[in-house]
């Protein structure tokens, strides 16, 4: 059984992002993807609080409280950057202009429903932020998540039990075991990491997964 580290999963996602893509990396683990984007490519990062062309974290003495990402961390500005207000920024997302958005998840259902903003726990303070906009706000919505919860329950499910963030919005799920595409027939495994098998994933998720791995895919993996 092979389990990639979060950084390795982030690397997998980074490799799927083409040169010139406009990308939003959600708060949390998805921000790790930025560390793996090749220097040789120009991939333009959007942050929904109002910027395109976001750069890496600044040196400590260059922290600018007016220049932050959606996670409220200090960032920098690349040449070619642009600032805009919130209606323009979310219009950009809602209008489907971003190529890729990478989000965390509590659950993803077979038809691509995403639950990632609330566990529905009584008494919890709700907060949604830009989650629902991000869920519907890109041509491709990738989820980056552990396959299982801490209680070993599958986050890939037939139907989400947690409150939805978006309906039929997820296109692909990257986990530490494998990559899953959302298809009209359910989850299709497109890439198995290491010695993992479809049978193992069927067992871990309790789902009937489609085997969409290909020899070409295997070669590609080996070549990396």
């Amino acid at each position, binding site marked *: 059984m092979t389990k990639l580290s979060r950084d390795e999963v982030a690397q997998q996602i980074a490799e799927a992002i083409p040169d010139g893509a406009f990308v939003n990396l959600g708060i949390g683990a998805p921000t790790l993807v930025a560390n793996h984007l090749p220097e040789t490519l120009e991939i333009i990062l959007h*942050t929904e609080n109002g910027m395109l062309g976001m750069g890496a974290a600044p040196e400590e003495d260059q922290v600018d*409280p007016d220049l932050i990402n959606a996670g409220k961390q200090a960032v920098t500005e690349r040449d070619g950057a642009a600032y805009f207000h919130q209606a323009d*920024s979310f219009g950009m997302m809602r209008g489907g202009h971003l190529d890729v958005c990478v989000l965390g998840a509590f659950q993803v259902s077979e038809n691509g429903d995403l639950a990632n903003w609330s566990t529905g726990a009584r008494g919890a303070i*709700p*907060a949604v932020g830009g989650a629902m906009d991000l869920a519907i706000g890109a041509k491709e919505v990738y989820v980056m998540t552990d396959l299982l919860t801490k209680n070993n329950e599958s986050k890939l499910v037939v139907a989400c039990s947690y*409150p939805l963030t978006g309906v039929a919005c997820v296109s692909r799920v990257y986990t530490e075991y494998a990559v899953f595409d959302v298809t009209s027939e359910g989850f299709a495994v497109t890439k198995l990491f290491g010695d993992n098998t479809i049978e193992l994933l069927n067992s871990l998720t309790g789902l009937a997964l489609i085997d969409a791995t290909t020899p070409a895919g295997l070669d590609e993996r080996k070549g990396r």
Partner: protein
Amino acid sequence: MIDKVVSSVEEAVAGVPQGATVMIGGFGRAGQPVELIDALIAQGASDLTIVSNNAGNGDVGLAALLSARRVRKIVCSFPRQSDSWVFDRLYRESAIELELVPQGNLAERIRAGGTGIGAFFTPTGAGTLLADGKEAREIDGRLYVLEYPIQADFALISAHKADRWGNLVYRKTARNFGPIMAAAATTSVAQVDEVVPLGAIDSEGVVTPSIFMQRVVKVPERQWLHDGKFVGRVDIEGQPRERATGTGAPGGSQ
């Protein structure tokens, strides 16, 4: 002659009535008009409805307004943050009402409020808990939910520079909600680092045109700026870093 510049933050927030709806700019701490909020606390209006992306950070600014129990209801997208203990406490005590709105719908509702749109169909939130009880409609095969404009009696925002007509420019991601809130309130008030002569703001680069502003007030320049240039040496909360190791003159490098 038009001169929207007032001489104090007290004057800038004068007249906020009891029970007013007040928009407050900012995303987290960036663009939060802390001096205006402090003046609003001193001014004393209560029973307020606040429209803001967050529900306060730490114990200052919006958090202090909440802590002073001046706020009946808050309309926001992301109240729960690592340092939102003031809101968290009031919410658990049922001492504040919360209307939770997805951030993009919040922004678009504020824009609609400023631009005379009666309502709009948005895909964001459609089919979720936050669309419960709202009118939904399928248009061209996609599900939308009908959302209504938000307007306010006052908008308190933070900008970088203003002229006496009220034209504004902002700084980096501190722009966030400023321009749309300025357009959606009856009385829009900006605190700025600098008031410049009329004509000094490039007409191609004006972000908030003068028509939206009613009052402008200069506040002390933010700690990480010096004469409008970034000098840094603060932490993400804007507090000075390594005071002791400064080299004397504020030597900026950006």
